């Protein structure tokens, strides 16, 4: 690759020099003929050579001056451009100020020497310089939004708009004619190429050509890009490109393609033979081609992985080691163990069973090489109540039903009645005693689903009257008068999109359209903290499985990690190209997964703040995530109705579950991980056999290394059951500790 690019570089430098010379001539001609159109055509003819910008700038300035009858300046400028660099810059800066925008200030910075430098760097196919020289230009241009201009001005190199369809068609014909094994791989080029060609046309004000181009070729694109195409199509003017986020995404991030070396060579050879510099430039500047050695991938392999806003994840992005193992259960540690024993003694009965179980558990978990260090991130210390809860959990676990294809779980459905489409989020506590719902009317409601009613702590004045020494002080502090089945929490000023109970059931988090995340006390049923930071809607929030930490993500594309006692975030995870739609903690609390509207899932290391996995393959915004209880696998569901299964350790897609027809809003693994339940907008709950799904995947070294996996087409075999609800979209699922499946949704009559 490098060698060829060098060649390209040499060639371009040569051409630059040539055009430098011819430019003088053409400039003269233009001045003489004094027709405004001819200048632009002169620019066009040269631009494929790559010298582009400053030549064009000069021509444009010349034209502008001519139009304003400033013939003297024209002469001066022409002389300067033709002769040498040491001229004074007054006419140029005049004209720039007069209205040619931020572009033409190149010579103001020091004349040709500088411009020559920038030209060379443009021709260099390395990534950063491609945007660097325009930056200088834009900065000196003094625009309000430098970023946008930097981004956009990269499009100012243009060819003849009429030729765009021809270029595209030529490439299309070529790719259609190559061997089958390469065709699928090379076809990946179509979409990014199409997008960038279209944007170039739009940027250079060839509105009609852009429209025609779009109409002609948008039908060829893969159907899963439809959403983006829709956005693209609405952009038909240069002014629209400023401030359009999707647009920025296309520009700021390179579209990543994975292509085998053979296919890449084929493409490169073709483009060079044809002297198709327009396309080649786009590929160089806007695409990142991740070349691998080995067999070209098949169409289905490519389709499985593509679909995200910016192509696939780079391979090296998924190389970092992820400690996906679980942390050791704290009971095993000696000092805690004793206390546990004591606690059990109080409890009385299950004395015999427990120690055995513990020891077994500790043995199996001790040696887990994939687990992070226990103290990798500081975790909150266990309180007595937490330990009690753990014990309860253990006891329940012994009564857990073993699920499997022949032993499906019972599903208990909690319907929210009279919610009038206002239910936006639901969460259950881990022990399934409480349900919380977030509503579009900004309220959060908490229900008790056990006979135990919700009570508020007494007021401070009443509390002072309590005998603090009594055994049942915890009972006494509760105000019996406030006992009710549900409580409403007021505080947000917009729809509540995310909601999460703390593991100890003392707190509740809610995130809202109003840009805040609120922490509520479930003792007093009041708001404790409002975490401000996201200034835009916060789509989701989630407590760490160990409490204390929580994650939030929203429209501002940044996921933030918070600790409940800090009003500022501890970590900010930036990298997604569109809204973060869902967030989830890894069971070991060392990692955080975020799903986004850019159709990727990212896994972030809580300790370092780095992105350690980029998982692509979804064809729509991701709305649900779930980790398997052993932390090894992850499931994700999106608006495209598909559930994808991932191997976290290898960063590989290991399964695809098709069956839903609408957005999947809820995913949950059963307590032992044998069954995955998915709930969707299509009013169904589906159960999937995950044991089989993970077994069916053959992972040899090669696939693990390259990530090119053959997904078995076995959705139908894995589907264990489909349960229709009565016009009730399923928006949350939860397995109780005994493996009863709870589902929730609002009845929409």
């Amino acid at each position, binding site marked *: 690759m490098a060698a060829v690019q060098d060649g390209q570089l040499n060639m371009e430098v040569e051409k630059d020099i040539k055009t430098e010379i011819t430019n003088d001539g053409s400039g003269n001609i233009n001045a003489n003929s004094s027709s405004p159109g001819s200048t632009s055509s002169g620019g066009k003819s040269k631009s494929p050579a790559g010298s582009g910008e400053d030549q064009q700038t000069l021509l444009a300035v010349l034209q502008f001056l001519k139009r304003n009858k400033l013939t003297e300046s024209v002469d001066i400028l022409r002389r300067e451009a033709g002769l040498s660099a040491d001229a004074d810059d007054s006419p140029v800066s005049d004209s720039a100020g007069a209205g040619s925008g931020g572009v033409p200030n190149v010579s103001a910075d020091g004349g040709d020497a500088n411009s020559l430098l920038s030209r060379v760097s443009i021709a260099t196919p390395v990534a950063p310089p491609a945007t660097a020289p325009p930056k200088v230009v834009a900065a000196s241009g003094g625009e309000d939004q430098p970023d946008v201009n930097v981004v956009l001005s990269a499009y100012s190199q243009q060819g003849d708009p009429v030729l765009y369809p021809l270029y595209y068609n030529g490439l299309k014909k070529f790719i259609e004619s190559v061997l089958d094994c390469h065709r699928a791989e090379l076809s990946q080029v179509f979409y990014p190429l199409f997008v960038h060609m279209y944007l170039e046309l739009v940027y250079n004000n060839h509105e009609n050509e852009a429209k025609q181009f779009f109409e002609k070729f948008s039908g060829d694109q893969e159907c899963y890009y439809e959403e983006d195409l*829709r956005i693209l199509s609405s952009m038909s003017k240069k002014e629209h490109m400023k401030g359009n986020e999707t647009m920025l995404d296309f520009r700021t991030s390179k579209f990543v393609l994975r292509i085998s070396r053979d296919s890449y060579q084929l493409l490169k050879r073709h483009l060079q033979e044809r002297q198709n510099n327009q396309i080649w430039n786009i590929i160089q500047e806007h695409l990142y081609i991740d070349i691998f050695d080995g067999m070209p991938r098949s169409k289905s392999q490519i389709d499985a992985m593509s679909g995200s806003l910016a192509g696939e994840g780079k391979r090296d992005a998924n190389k970092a080691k992820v400690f996906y193992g679980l942390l050791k259960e704290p009971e095993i540690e000696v000092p805690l163990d004793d206390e546990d024993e004591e606690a059990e003694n109080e409890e009385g009965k299950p004395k015999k069973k427990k120690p055995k179980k513990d020891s077994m558990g500790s043995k199996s978990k001790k040696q887990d090489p994939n687990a992070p260090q226990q103290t990798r991130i500081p975790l909150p210390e266990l309180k007595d109540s937490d330990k009690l809860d753990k014990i309860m959990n253990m006891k329940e676990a012994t009564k857990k039903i073993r699920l499997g294809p022949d032993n499906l*779980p019972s599903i208990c459905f909690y319907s929210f009645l009279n919610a009038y489409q206002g239910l936006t989020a639901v969460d259950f506590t881990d022990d399934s005693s409480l349900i919380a719902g977030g509503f579009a009317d900004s309220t959060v409601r908490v229900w008790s689903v056990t006979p135990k009613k919700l009570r508020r702590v007494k007021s401070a004045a009443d509390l002072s009257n309590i005998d603090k020494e009594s055994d049942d002080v915890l009972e006494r502090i509760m105000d019996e008068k406030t006992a009710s089945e549900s409580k409403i929490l007021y505080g947000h000023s917009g729809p509540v999109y995310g909601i999460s109970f703390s593991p100890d059931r003392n707190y509740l988090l809610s995130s809202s359209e109003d840009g805040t995340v609120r922490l509520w006390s479930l003792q007093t049923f009041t708001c404790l903290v409002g975490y401000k930071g996201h200034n835009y809607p916060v789509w989701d929030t989630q407590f760490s499985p160990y409490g204390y930490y929580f994650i939030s993500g929203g429209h501002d594309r940044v996921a933030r990690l918070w600790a409940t006692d800090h009003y500022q975030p501890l970590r900010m995870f930036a990298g997604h190209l569109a809204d973060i739609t869902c967030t989830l903690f890894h069971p070991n609390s060392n990692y955080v997964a975020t799903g986004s509207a850019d159709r990727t899932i990212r896994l972030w290391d809580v300790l370092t703040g780095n992105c350690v996995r980029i998982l692509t393959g979804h064809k729509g915004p991701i709305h649900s995530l779930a980790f398997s209880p052993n932390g090894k696998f992850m499931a994700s569901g999106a608006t495209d109705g598909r559930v994808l299964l991932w191997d976290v350790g290898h960063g590989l897609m290991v399964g695809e579950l098709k069956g839903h027809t609408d957005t999947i809003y809820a995913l949950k693994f059963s307590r032992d991980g044998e069954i995955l339940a998915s709930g969707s907008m299509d009013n169904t709950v589906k159960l999937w056999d995950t044991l089989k799904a993970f077994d069916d995947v053959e992972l040899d070294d090669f696939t693990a290394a390259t990530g090119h996996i053959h997904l078995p087409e076995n959705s139908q075999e894995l589907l264990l059951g489909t349960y229709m609800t009565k016009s009730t979209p399923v928006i949350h699922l939860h397995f109780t500790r005994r493996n009863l499946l709870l589902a929730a949704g609002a009845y929409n009559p």
Partner: protein
Amino acid sequence: MSDMSATMAEERRPKQCTVVLPTESMKAMAESIGVGQLQEESCAALSEEVSYRIKEIAQDALKFMHHGKRRKLTTSDIDHALKLKNVEPLYGFQSQEFIPFRFASGGGRELHFYEEKEVDLSDIINTPLPRVPLDVSLKAHWLSIEGVQPAIPENPPPAPKEQQKAESTEPLKVVKPGQEEEGSIQKGQGAISAEAKGKKEGLMRMKPRSTHELSVEQQLYYKEITEACVGSCEAKRAEALQSIATDPGLYQMLPRFSTFISEGVRVNVVQNNLALLIYLMRMVKALMDNPTLYLEKYLHELIPAVVTCIVSKQLCLRPDVDNHWALRDFAARLMAQSCKTFSTTTNNIQSRITKTFTKSWLDEKTQWTTRYGCIAGLSELGPDVIKTLILPRLTVEGARIKAVSEGPVVSNIDKIGADHVQSLLLKHCASVIAKTRPLPDNMEQYRADYGYLGPTLCSHVVKARAQAALQAQQVNRTTLTITQPRPTLTVSQSGIGGSGGSRSPSIIKVPSSLTLMSTRPGTPTQPSPPATKYIVMATSAGASSTQQVITLSSSSGSSVTSTVASATSTLQPLVKLESRGAGGLGGSRPLQKYIVVSLPTSASSSLESKSGMLPPSSSSTSPISLEAGMKMDRSDSPGASTQSPH
């Protein structure tokens, strides 16, 4: 606003590039804010910019819809999207239902406008407050018990209509053994997984064994329903019929009902028990109206029963007094309906039925009662049938009627029969002739063409033509003011008037949810929906329209009558509703033109749902003909739309 942008965002791909607001809209908006002459170029530039912004906002609004876990874009989504862009939201569009934009054209311009009525403040103050909406509540039920979905009202019916249809129309579909086994233990939705299992096994069999096991609850239900249907209490019967017509879970019981009806007719025809026959026919009607049932499999029992009620020689003990004609009409209409729904090229129901009717009609010895039934059955099948089969026979039939009415008195019964046949023929033929025969209507010419019945027919045709003309006029007018239920007085905002004058918005705030409540079922899980609400809009030449909300507790003929009658008092004199007998059988009425719009009981507000929500009995027995603006195909039954008075 929401609707506009929603449709825009959902435009299909090929059109994507070109969808731009028309420049006329820009002009209209400019006019509305006082800019008079906007140049065409500016309009074009503006419209492109505006279209782009609207699309951008719509795309953002979609995000809020997705996160709101909804399928429908609401105005609040738009507001939030505007907020994202730092634009002030549009206040005053807080509506959970869609905003009723209306279409108007005139003077070469087409407009969509938001209709605003002047509302008297005192009216609002004096109207009793609506019920307080129910608070959100939580209800738990078993969606599945160890993998099997229990058949309880909270769960959807086990077999959707499409599946029933597929089963009955493709009986030879290859079915795997696994599925059959699963099906026999009634696995419900779990059958899909069973199908998957079945794939592995190689054996194939032809047809699944159908199951008729009923749970105890279902048996009780069946007993209650059948007793109520044929019992003496009319209120109970209305409830039972309503249940049959709407309950989604009757699939399992369909074979029982079918047998019940067929046996019942057989017994009661022999006993000449007219009342019971009517009850049974109403049951058939209710079954047919149930949107979740597909009756194809049971037609072999139902059709003979219905045909019996049409053509039987004697249906009642006293043929000279009892109105068995109404039963024949009703059954004939049922027959026509089932022909329409179920006739295919393979079963040929329509042609077989037509043959049967024609054969017995042509028979000289056929009694007047049977004759009446045959003609009624044929004429309900549509104008084409009337044209090809009945019109050519008018002369012969006329002669026969003449023989009875002018000849020596044979028997009173024959005379009554001949009278009924005559009016039936006149009624059906007149409308067809009015449509097909060219003017002028010459008395003598008619006599020559149609014999004895010619002159009377001629006068009927003249009337029918006059009515058709009137109707056409009204249809034209009503298309302008179509079908917007305005259930609430929530918010009024000045729309864009055609003249271009702007008015300051008058905002009246009533929490929309309060009033909307009344159109929804109180407890959503109850199986049968409450009475459907209708707005009857009658338009008269005065261009002022009246709206009346009528609550039809469907399937009870009597209550329809009373409410409708009470409604008439406030309507324009030109338009009047006439009350009908119980059950809506028989009789004829003056031509009326109504637009009936049912308020959707659900939150969905599409037109399809409206037409779907019409309760069963009203569509065939109520005096309201549904036309024009509604997507209802009723034009094929001339009896419903154009009927001559007595």
